């Protein structure tokens, strides 16, 4: 009977994480480049109380097994494309398709982001709005009068006293065989935790990488309606497991009163 209590409690814990994740998705509905999380659940181990013994006579054709509830098995990022929003800001870039911008994280390692709201730092380097330097480093000259970013990531600037545009660098994108294995680090940045495979860095628009659109941003791919439905499911699933706790408790109470005082 205690097993029923524990199984139900495990179910309630799992649903709590479901609700936590839903709340996090909803809180990020307006976060640029945010990818929604999806929780996966799995059933816990089963105890075989009596094994199957074959169908003949008094035997069991199927085993008697009792499971121990459920647990969240993984939270995967769903990397579907978010809606695009035209901002007309020349340093906003939208990745249309697969791929991440590479940035240098504070500890020197490479981070990956879909948030293309770029700006320049005091040295003229292209940075994300959190201040992470875009890799490979691109320095915009201080006298640049206009900036253009092509679909394949080349950055062209016009400078005072020069005729025509100068190419000052090219944004490269990275993609992963198993993007779901990336770890979200907050600040819209992902980290390679060694299970996503080797990043393939390349020119936007080639080898399956997405192309770049200047003056637009990718919004989150959170669908509010879907998250609201998930919230209802989490709440109700939590509720039914709590009923199982009560039923188990009732039965233990009854058993304790087989012989009333």
């Amino acid at each position: 009977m205690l097993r029923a209590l524990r199984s139900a409690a495990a179910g309630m814990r799992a649903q709590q994480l479901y609700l936590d994740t839903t709340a996090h998705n909803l809180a990020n509905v307006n976060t640029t480049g945010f990818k929604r999380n999806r929780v996966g659940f799995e059933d816990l181990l089963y105890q075989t109380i009596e094994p199957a013994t074959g169908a003949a006579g008094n035997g069991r054709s199927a085993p008697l097994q009792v499971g121990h509830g459920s647990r969240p098995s993984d939270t995967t990022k769903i990397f579907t494309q978010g809606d695009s929003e035209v901002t007309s800001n020349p340093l906003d870039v939208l990745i249309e398709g697969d791929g991440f911008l590479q940035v240098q994280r504070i500890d020197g390692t490479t981070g990956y982001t879909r948030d293309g709201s770029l700006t320049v730092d005091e040295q003229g380097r292209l940075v994300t709005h959190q201040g992470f330097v875009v890799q490979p480093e691109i320095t915009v000259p201080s006298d640049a009068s206009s900036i253009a970013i092509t679909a394949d990531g080349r950055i062209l600037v016009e400078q005072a006293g020069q005729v025509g545009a100068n190419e000052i660098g090219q944004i490269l994108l990275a993609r992963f065989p198993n993007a779901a294995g990336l770890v979200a680090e907050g600040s819209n940045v992902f980290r390679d935790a060694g299970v996503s495979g080797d990043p393939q860095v390349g020119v936007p628009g080639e080898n399956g990488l997405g192309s770049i659109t200047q003056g637009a941003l990718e919004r989150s791919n959170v669908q509010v309606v879907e998250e609201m439905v998930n919230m209802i499911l989490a709440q109700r699933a939590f509720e039914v497991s709590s009923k199982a706790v009560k039923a188990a408790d009732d039965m233990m109470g009854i058993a304790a009163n087989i012989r009333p005082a």
Partner: protein
Amino acid sequence: MLRGIRANAEALGPAMRAQEIVANNLANTQTVGFRQDRSAFHRELEDAGAVGSNGGTTGAGGSIGAANALVLAPRIDLTPAAIETTGDPNHLAIDGAGFFAVQGEAGDLYTRDGGMLRGPDGTLLHRSGAPFLGDGGPIVAPSDRAIAVGNDGTVRAGEEIIGKLRVVRLTDPNSLHHVGQGLLRSEAGAEADPESRVLQGSLEAGNSDPVTNLIEMMSLVRAFEANQRAILTQDQSLGRLLGWASQ
């Protein structure tokens, strides 16, 4: 009288166990591809020889409780559940009665949960980390192309066919048992199931239905209570008898 108490007491254990199974079903209402257990009780004659001798003393044939054992015989419910469209190309669902085959450490395992992950080398993995089986073993997807899965389980990377997921029908569904993590093992074999269709971008929910499980739960509590009351009544009768005899 003592036999009656024992018969009622014997019903308590299986009812508790059945409640544990219901609690597990209810904990897994949101588990993708979960297959719930349905409890069924049946009475089994423990000893056929005892029936005749009991017949003489009770005058009611072999139907007296203590000669029978109450057996809890759960079955895995294989009813398909609702299919949810997720839009993620790594999500697969089966429309039909088939199962995906995955490579377990000790033989093939079966699952209805088609949430794929990729290994670092591109191998298509089940949530538990076990590789999905294709016709020629695990399927390794190239990293530079998106994969498309056809209704017959054919996996393509771009135009190139890189494998065909094994979708099987189990020859003896009764021999299935749970190993956890959404996986089932079968002692009997499995054969290819050409009738089931694989749907990419969808996941199948668990088939653990809260309504029937809650009703099952309530009736188990009441059955448990009824047996407890019966024990109580018989105990009181015995007490009265003993009290009368000692006067």
